[in-house]
C-alpha cells in the first residue's frame, strides 16, 4: 500500500519507525472505525491518531473542511497545529492545518469560513460557536473525522459534556463520521471511550507503549526524625532541590497549587546562581508569559520551570531532562502523567523526583511506589445529566439552522451524558429555552428560542449575539485580570482574593511582588512593589483530594507495617519510625479499623478521626458528624480537614463512647442529614454561579459590549433567590443541589466511609499529646465555623459580639 509510505518516510527522517499500536490505529482509521488511543505522554499517540488522516488526505484531497482536531487548552492549539502540519508538509502538502480558537480574530474566522482548510485545530467552545451559525450543517457535513486530544482531561468536566453534545450534532449530519480520542491511561477506559463515540457505537480501544517504566526517586531528608510532621510548602528541601536542578540540563518542578508554585519560584530565584533561567507557569498567568516559559524550556534558555497542573497537558511540549514533584502527587495517574514529561522518547524511562513536604508524605510516597507496581490507575467519571449544558446546547442547535425538537431529543440521547435523559426532563429544558419555564403565563414576553413550523429557531439577532458570547464561558471563573497601569497583562487572580486587598497592599503573583493600585472593570491595576513582603494568593480549587486508590494503598501500607511486612523501599523505611510512634501512642488506621483520638488542650477538646477519604469528603463528613452530635448535645465545633482525616474542636469536652460514634456514623439518612448539616442552600447558591452562566441566566461583562449586557446583569445569587422563591421546581436549582453533594462533597466517598465503618472496629484513644496523624490537622488549621445555628442566630451572635466589643 503506497499510502503508508509518507508516514514511514516522515518517521524515518527522525530515525524512527512506526510502532505496532500506530499501525493498528492507522488500519482501524482506514476501516472506518472510531475509538480511543491511550498511552503515556510522548509515546507517539498524536501520530497514531493523526496518521490515518494524513494518508487519507494525501490519497484523496476532498473538499472543504474534513478534519477537526479538538484540544482542551487554547494555549496548546498553536503547538498542536504545528505538530499536525509536520507530516503533511514532509509529504509536500503545505498549509493544510489552520487554527480557530477564542483568540482568533473575527477577520480570520470569516476567512476560515470562506476558504476552509482541510484540517482545523479548535477548542470545544469554539466548535460549539461554529455549530451556532445558520449554515453550520452545510459547512460541517463533509467532515471525515474528529480527533479529541487529552480526552481524559475533558471527560469529567462540563466541557466534556458540551463536546459530547457537539459530536452528536456532527454525527447527526454525517453518520459515517469517525471519532478518535487520545487519552492518558484511565481506570475506566470503556466508559471514557463510550462517552467519546456515543452510546450507539462500538469503540475500539488501542493501547500504546504501556510498558514504559516510571522510575520514582524520593528526595528523602537526611534525618527523618527531625523532619516536620506538618507543612505544605516543603521549602526546607530547597537546597537539595537546587542541587538536583543544577545536576540536570532542564527541569520541570511541579507543585500541587499555584500558591506553592509562587513560593517555590521566589525561593529558587532568591538563592540560585541562575535567577534569569527560572520561570513560572500556572493557569492564572497570562498566555504570553506561559508561552515564554514553554519556549524558554524547549530552546534551553531556561534551566527550570516551576509549574502546576497547567503543564499536565500538552502533546508536543518538549521533554525535559528531569521532573520534580513537590508534595504528594495525590494520585497515581497524575504521577505517571507528570513523570511522562521527562525522557520523551518511545521506549524511554520516565523519571520523577518526589519532594515530600512533611513526614506523612513520605509514607504516601511509599504507597505510591507499591501502587505503581500494580499498574492500576484512577478512573475519571464522566458527568451525567448536566441540564445547564443541555440548555445551552439546545439554543446553539436552534441557532445552527434550526432543528425539530423530537429529532434533537433522539440525538442528545446518543450521548453518554444524556443517555438516561427522561422525556419530562427534556420537555423541561425545551420549555426553559422557549417559554422561560413550565408555566406559560409566568414568563410574559420571554424571548429566546421559538418553535416555528416544527423547528426550534432563535428569532432575535441580539439574543444570538449574547448566546455566542456566552458559549465560551464554561471555563471562566470569577477572576480579575491583573495588569500593569502602563499596560502589560500578567494574568488573572480570583476575585475573592483581590476583593480583600486594599489599594496599596501587596501580593505575590506571576513571580513578582505587586502593589494594588485599584480595581476597575474586572481588572486589577498594579505596579511593581519595592518591598518584598507580601501575601500569596490562595486560589480556590486546584487541590485535588487524595485518590481512593492511593488512600487505600496508604492504609494497606499501615496494615503491612502492623503485620511486619513493610515493603523494603527507601520511603517505607524512612516512614517506619513515624508509623511506629503512631502505633505506640494510639493506633494505625487500617481498612478494617477506624481510629479516633480525643485530646484535651488549652484550646479545648479535640476529636480527631481518620477515615482516609480525601479532603473533600472529609469536609462533608466532618460537618455531618458535628451536626449529628450537636443534635444530642448543643455544641459548637470548629472543623479542620485534610486528606487523612478531620478534627472537631469544641470549647467543652464532648464525651463520646464507641456506641455513640456508631450512632453518628450510621449510613442511614445520609443525604437528608448532610443537607441539614451544611448550610446546603448557601453551598448550592455558590454552585449555582457556574450553572447560571452556562444556562445563560447571567451574562458576563464583555469589553466593548457594555450597554447591551449591563442592563441585564444580575448576580447569580440574586437569580438563585428569585427562582427559589417563585420557581422552586426549576431543575437547575435541583442540579445545583446535586452538584454540591456529588462534586463538592464527594458524597459517594462519604457513603463509602459510613458503610465501611459498620464493618470496621472503632479504635478510640485518649493520647496525652498530639499524635503524628493529629499534628498536621492541628497545625494546618483552617478554621471553618460550624454550628447548628440558623442565619438569624448567626446575626444575633455577631451583633452580640459587636456589643461586647463596644462595651
Amino acid at each position, binding site marked *: 500500500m503506497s499510502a503508508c509510505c509518507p508516514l514511514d518516510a516522515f518517521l524515518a527522517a527522525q530515525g524512527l519507525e512506526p510502532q505496532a499500536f500506530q499501525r493498528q490505529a492507522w488500519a482501524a482509521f482506514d476501516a472506518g472505525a472510531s475509538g480511543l488511543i491511550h498511552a503515556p505522554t510522548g509515546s507517539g499517540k498524536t501520530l497514531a491518531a493523526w496518521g490515518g488522516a494524513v494518508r487519507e488526505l494525501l490519497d484523496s484531497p476532498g473538499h472543504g473542511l474534513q478534519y477537526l482536531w479538538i484540544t482542551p487548552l487554547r494555549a496548546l492549539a498553536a503547538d498542536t497545529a504545528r505538530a499536525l502540519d509536520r507530516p503533511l508538509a514532509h509529504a509536500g502538502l503545505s498549509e493544510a492545518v489552520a487554527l480557530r480558537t477564542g483568540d482568533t480574530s473575527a477577520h480570520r474566522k470569516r476567512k476560515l469560513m470562506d476558504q476552509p482548510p482541510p484540517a482545523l485545530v479548535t477548542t470545544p467552545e469554539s466548535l460549539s460557536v461554529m455549530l451556532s451559525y445558520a449554515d453550520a450543517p452545510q459547512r460541517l457535513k463533509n467532515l471525515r473525522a474528529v480527533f479529541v486530544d487529552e480526552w481524559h482531561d475533558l471527560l469529567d468536566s462540563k466541557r466534556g459534556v458540551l463536546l459530547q453534545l457537539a459530536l452528536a450534532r456532527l454525527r447527526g449530519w454525517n453518520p459515517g463520521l469517525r471519532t478518535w480520542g487520545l487519552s492518558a491511561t484511565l481506570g475506566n477506559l470503556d466508559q471514557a471511550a463510550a462517552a467519546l463515540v456515543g452510546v450507539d457505537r462500538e469503540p475500539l480501544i488501542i493501547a500504546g507503549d504501556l510498558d514504559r517504566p516510571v522510575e520514582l526517586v524520593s528526595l528523602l531528608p537526611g534525618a527523618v526524625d527531625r523532619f516536620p510532621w506538618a507543612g505544605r510548602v516543603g521549602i526546607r528541601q530547597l537546597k537539595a532541590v537546587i542541587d538536583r536542578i543544577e545536576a540536570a540540563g532542564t527541569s520541570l518542578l511541579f507543585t500541587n497549587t499555584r500558591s506553592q508554585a509562587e513560593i517555590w519560584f521566589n525561593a529558587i530565584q532568591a538563592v540560585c546562581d541562575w535567577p534569569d533561567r527560572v520561570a513560572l507557569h500556572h493557569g492564572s498567568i497570562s498566555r504570553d508569559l506561559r508561552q515564554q516559559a514553554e519556549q524558554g524550556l524547549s530552546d534551553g534558555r531556561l534551566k527550570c520551570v516551576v509549574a502546576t497542573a497547567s503543564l499536565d497537558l500538552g502533546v508536543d511540549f518538549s521533554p525535559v531532562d528531569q521532573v520534580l514533584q513537590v508534595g504528594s502527587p495525590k494520585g497515581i495517574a497524575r504521577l505517571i502523567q507528570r513523570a511522562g514529561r521527562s525522557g520523551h522518547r518511545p521506549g524511554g524511562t520516565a523519571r520523577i523526583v518526589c519532594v515530600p513536604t512533611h513526614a506523612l508524605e513520605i509514607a504516601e510516597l511509599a504507597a505510591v511506589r507499591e501502587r505503581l507496581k500494580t499498574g492500576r490507575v484512577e478512573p475519571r467519571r464522566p458527568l451525567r445529566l448536566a441540564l445547564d449544558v443541555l440548555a445551552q446546547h439546545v439554543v446553539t442547535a436552534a441557532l445552527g439552522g434550526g432543528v425539530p425538537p423530537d429529532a434533537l431529543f433522539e440525538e442528545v440521547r446518543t450521548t453518554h451524558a444524556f443517555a438516561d435523559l427522561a422525556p419530562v426532563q427534556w420537555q423541561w429544558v425545551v420549555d426553559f429555552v422557549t417559554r422561560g419555564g413550565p408555566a406559560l403565563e*409566568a414568563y410574559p414576553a420571554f*424571548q429566546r428560542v421559538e418553535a416555528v413550523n416544527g423547528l426550534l429557531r432563535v428569532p432575535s439577532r441580539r439574543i444570538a449575539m449574547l448566546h455566542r458570547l456566552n458559549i465560551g464561558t464554561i471555563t471562566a471563573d470569577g477572576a480579575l485580570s491583573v495588569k500593569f497601569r502602563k499596560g502589560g497583562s500578567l494574568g488573572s487572580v480570583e476575585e475573592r482574593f483581590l476583593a480583600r486587598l486594599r489599594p496599596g497592599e501587596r501580593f505575590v503573583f506571576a513571580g513578582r511582588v505587586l502593589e494594588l493600585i485599584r480595581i476597575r472593570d474586572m481588572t486589577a491595576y498594579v505596579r511593581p512593589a519595592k518591598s518584598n513582603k507580601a501575601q500569596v494568593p490562595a486560589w480556590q480549587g486546584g487541590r485535588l483530594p487524595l485518590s481512593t486508590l492511593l488512600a487505600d494503598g496508604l492504609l494497606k501500607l499501615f496494615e503491612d507495617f502492623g503485620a511486619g511486612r513493610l515493603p523494603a523501599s527507601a520511603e517505607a523505611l524512612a516512614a517506619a519510625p513515624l508509623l511506629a510512634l503512631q502505633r505506640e501512642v494510639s493506633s494505625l488506621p487500617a481498612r478494617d479499623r477506624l481510629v479516633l483520638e480525643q485530646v484535651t488542650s488549652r484550646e479545648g477538646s479535640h476529636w480527631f478521626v481518620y477515615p482516609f477519604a480525601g479532603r473533600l469528603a472529609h469536609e462533608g463528613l466532618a460537618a455531618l458528624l458535628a451536626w449529628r452530635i450537636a443534635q444530642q448535645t448543643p455544641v459548637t465545633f470548629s472543623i479542620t480537614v485534610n486528606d487523612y482525616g478531620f478534627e472537631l474542636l469544641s470549647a467543652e469536652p464532648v464525651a463520646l463512647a464507641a456506641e455513640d460514634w456508631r450512632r453518628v456514623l450510621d449510613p442511614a439518612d445520609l443525604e437528608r442529614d448532610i443537607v441539614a448539616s451544611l448550610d446546603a442552600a448557601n453551598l448550592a447558591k455558590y454552585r449555582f454561579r457556574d450553572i447560571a452562566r452556562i444556562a445563560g441566566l447571567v451574562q458576563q461583562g464583555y469589553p466593548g459590549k457594555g450597554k447591551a449586557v449591563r*442592563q*441585564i446583569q444580575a448576580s447569580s445569587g440574586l*437569580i438563585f433567590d428569585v427562582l427559589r*422563591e*417563585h420557581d422552586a421546581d426549576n431543575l437547575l436549582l435541583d442540579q445545583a443541589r446535586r452538584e454540591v453533594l456529588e462534586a463538592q462533597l464527594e458524597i459517594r466517598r462519604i457513603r463509602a466511609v459510613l458503610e465501611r465503618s459498620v464493618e470496621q472496629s472503632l479504635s478510640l484513644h485518649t493520647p496525652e499529646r498530639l499524635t503524628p496523624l493529629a499534628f498536621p490537622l492541628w497545625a494546618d488549621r483552617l478554621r471553618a465555623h460550624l454550628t447548628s445555628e440558623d442565619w438569624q442566630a448567626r446575626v444575633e451572635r455577631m451583633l452580640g459580639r459587636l456589643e461586647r466589643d*463596644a462595651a
Partner: protein
Amino acid sequence: MSLRIELAGHPLDLRADRSVWWPARRTAFVADVHLGKDQVFRRSGVPIPAEVLDAELAALDAVLAGTGAERLIVLGDWVHAAPDDDDGWPHAVERWRRHHAELELVLVAGNHDRGLTEWLERWRMQDWADGARLDGLALMHEVDLDAPPAGLSGHVHPVVRLGPRGDRVRLTAFARRADHLILPAFGRFTGGGEGLERAGWTFYGIAGDRVVDLSGVRPPLRR
C-alpha cells in the same frame, strides 16, 4: 419592626421592610424599586419569573398598610427601564395604583426613570425635581457621598457585612452621614455592583424583622 432616628430634628422610623416612615408628615419613602426589571431580563432571554413584579407591588402594599401613609415618595429608580408598548407590567402598576386611589404618589426621578412622561400621568404620579425640599430635608436620587446635605436619597443600594471571614453575613442597610440618610434598594431583584468606600458613613442594618444600629461598623457601600 422599626428603629426611630432623628434627622435634622425630624423623628423618622427606619423600617425592616426597607422603607422610611415620617409620622409627622404621614409620608413613607422608598428608593430603587426597579419595577419591570424582570421583564427586561425576559426580553433578553433570561427567564426571570413575572411573580417578581407581583411580589414588589405586594411589598409596597405592606408598607402602606403598615404605616397608613397618605403619601409615598419614591426616591428614584421607580422603574428599571422605560416600558415597551406591549409590556404588561405598567398596566399591573396601574391596577395597583387604582387600589390606592387616595394615595399621593411622588417620584423624584432617578437615572433609570427615563421616557416615563405618559405613564407618570396614567399612574397619577407627581414628578418632583431632584433636590426638592420637605421641611428642610432635601430629597434626591443620588447624593454627593463626600458632601451630603440634610435629606434623603437612594441609588447606592447600601449593604453591610458583619463577621469574620468564613462566617460572614450580608445585611441590606440604611446608610447615614450627619443628617443625610441613604435608603436601601426597595426592589428585591436588585443588588451587585462594584464596591466603593467612603469615610464618615455609618449603618443601620436590616436583620430579619428588625433594624439594628451598627454605627460601630464601617464597611463598604455598594452601588
